[in-house]
């Protein structure tokens, strides 16, 4: 996948999410050179993304990301979506695809009607809410890859440092977004359609034979 293809893919995903009425606010992705034959897709405004890795309460992480504009999409229920890629010689060298649910609001499933009707007080929420951030990471750097323990493409649930569920290959923006909508916005699944070609595009596999022996995801 070339940088231009990835950029088009991300923009297409954002446009369709807006058109489906699921995106309240968004920030444009942008492409820049970072060295000889190297480039990256980042979030316009260059917000600081590292805060999500710090050891502070999730509410603070979410608030900092939100206020800092560190997202491509803010979903209808407050979840923040980030999509960043790096490239070398027009091939993906790493990616970071994240969902940060809002710790302050009900998830879309639980309060679909309130969100749709734009209930003014939908944010008056008392219950103790538990939210799990979800991250698809990829790096083709051989120094980072440890067979089974640190697969090249992996899925992390929550902020567990040790959680690296192997994924068969790097994930495209469309397939990532499809995953997010299907599993976290299921009531709205039929409402949004993605570009067929983009959806079918799967990147070359990076998973090893050993990694296939434990539970893994097909991207």
């Amino acid at each position, binding site marked *: 996948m070339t940088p231009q293809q990835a950029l088009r893919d991300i923009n297409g995903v954002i446009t369709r999410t807006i058109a489906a009425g699921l995106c309240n606010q968004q920030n444009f992705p942008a492409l820049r050179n970072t060295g000889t034959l190297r480039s990256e897709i980042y979030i316009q405004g260059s917000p600081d993304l590292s805060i999500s890795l710090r050891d502070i309460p999730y509410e603070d992480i979410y608030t900092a990301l939100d206020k800092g504009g560190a997202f491509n999409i803010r979903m209808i229920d407050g979840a923040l979506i980030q999509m960043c890629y790096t490239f070398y010689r027009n091939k993906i060298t790493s990616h970071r695809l994240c969902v940060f649910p809002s710790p302050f609001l009900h998830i879309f499933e639980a309060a679909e009607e309130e969100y749709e009707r734009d209930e003014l007080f939908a944010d008056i*929420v008392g219950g103790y809410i538990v939210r799990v951030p979800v991250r698809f990471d990829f790096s083709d750097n051989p120094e980072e890859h440890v067979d089974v323990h640190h697969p090249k493409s992996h899925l992390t649930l929550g902020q567990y440092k040790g959680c690296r569920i192997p994924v068969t290959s790097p994930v495209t923006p469309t397939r990532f977004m499809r995953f997010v909508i299907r599993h976290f916005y299921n009531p709205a699944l039929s409402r949004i359609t993605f570009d067929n070609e983009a959806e079918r595009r799967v990147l070359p596999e990076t998973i090893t034979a050993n990694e296939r022996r434990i539970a893994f995801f097909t991207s």
Partner: protein
Amino acid sequence: MANVIWGTTTKPVSSQRLAEIIQASQDTDGTLYIGYPVLGTPDGAFPFDGILLSPQHGIIIFDIVEGRDLGDYEGRQDNFFSKLQSKLIQYPALVQRRILLANIVVLTFAPVAAISTVSSSDYPVYSDERVIGFISSIDWAHPEVFPALAAAVQALSNIKKGRRRRDIQQPDSRGAKLQRLNDSIANLDADQGAAVIETVDGVQRIRGLAGSGKTIVLALKVAYLHAQHPEWRIAITFNTRSLKGQFERLINTFVIEQTNEEPDWQKISIVHSWGSPSSPAGMYYIYTKSTGITYYEFGAAKQKFGGGQEFSGACAEALQVVPEPQPPYDVILVDEAQDLPPAFLQLCYRFLKPPKRLVYAYDELQSLTNASLPAPEELFGADARGRPLVTFAPDRPGRPRQDIILERCYRNSRPILATAHALGFGIYRTGGLIQIFDQAQLWLDVGYRVVAGQLADNHTVSLARTPETSPEFLESHSPIDDLIVFRRFGTSEEQDNWLVSEILKNLREDELTAEDIIVINPDPLKTRKAVAYARSRLYTEGINSSLAGVSGSPDIFFEPDVITFTGIFRAKGNEAAMVYVINAHDCFESFHPTGLTRVRNQLFTGMTRAKAWVRVLGIGHQMDALIEEYTRIRENNYTLTFTYPDEKRRQELRIVNRDMTKTEQDRISRRINELSNVLEALEHGDVRVEDLPISVRNRLRDLLG
């Protein structure tokens, strides 16, 4: 004739005497402020005993003496003078070649002191009417800077700062016009001044049309009270979350102007009415925590008290608690009181220390059905013996006013406001008036004047706004047909495409910025879907937009470089230079008469968000009909001419258009459907009229009358 505004004073008797003398003088114009302004100095807040802001003579400072002893009056006069001068000289508009253009004169007023031997021309002292002669003799070479002088004294010079300066290339672009509109100097008018400065040891009501400056007035009031009474605990609360950011910014600016320091945020609380454990605290939440009673979040409240009654049910239950809580606040100010249930106002009343200083402000005619809120006797209930807890005494001279009306609208131009009212009430509607209120006087209160006929039952009357109540500068920047545009489309795609192309034009040619534009969809239930297409198209054009909603920072309505799309509820309290109301055809009619009130109200609210230009867009024949109704308004030159309905007709209108909950509406819908089915059966002959028993036929006849 001067008017007098009463702030906090420690010299009531002498001040009263001064006010009487000033008001008795026919030739003395301007405003006499007692206990105002409070200036920020290096030593902190510095209150003045009194000043006269005079368009002819400049500013006259009064050093007021309550008793017999003049004391070091020369020193005091020096002090007043230098404090004010050092403040005013900071405003470039008041200075020319390092010389202050504002005229500052100081005198001592001491009605009961013995002064016969002391008066000199350098340090004048007066005790009676001769002070007028002195004032009249003051010469001022630069009366043209009076607006800038007033703005500086009223701490309003800085509120427009902090917004980005626009990059204006063409002198006549929309951006340039808007810049000029924003730059027009803000002065408080007499009613606003009174609302800011006069505070009652009891309940005070401030009402006015949307756009009459209530938010700024309340913020100034908080700043003034905080400067005068730094030990008081002050709270300001409201319904629309996005007001929080506005209030924080304004109060911060005004307190710094008046005390030269940041506010003591331990003493000032800016809180939403409801609140929750995770969001910043709200008044109701704080109340439940202090009494230890159950706090209801939205979902739980809906379950227990029913849809539409969530907040009022929660507050009503909180009020049942005994014993009453320990009240923490000295003053509570409530904005948007028309959107808050009476139970909430009663809750605030309980939460105040004696003498229960509650200031509640609301938009008059917001609901368009009646005076927006019941009278205070009804609103606050009665004590154990049935006596109302709160009544308003008639105004007395020398006493702060309990009931203040702001009749000037500073946001909407006359054509926009009159159109919004005409459509809201259905003045020129083919089917007749939709709603009207009992107190005809309200029209005058909110700034309409009778230009023909009589404002009385069964009489024809023509009402219009005047340049006094709707400043001309709001409409003179553009031709009327550019101020208001109604447009009809065949399909929603056509509408959205036109909207997008207009927005692109606004940004790329008209020199407007994204924050100058709001797009409003009147029906809150359909907004999300209705705006999706336009927003996605804007995204592909590289224009960022957001859908105002609960997921965003609820306390912020505008983000830089982002066009705000919103449903009608979240638009309340906000304004923008260019407003697009889309799908307005939904507002023309409604299947249920009760719905008609609501949709016309939505159209009213949408249109009155516009500071400069409004575009009302819609689809199909409903939109044609709406445009027809607007054309009649325009042909009448934005004057409202109609026959005032009598009591009987007003009753009818009230019943037909009464507010209903969703359950009631559904129930009525079902019954009407059932009845329609019966009628169909009769018409088709499935059931013959003769088949109906005589008793049934009689009952029908009686009911239909």
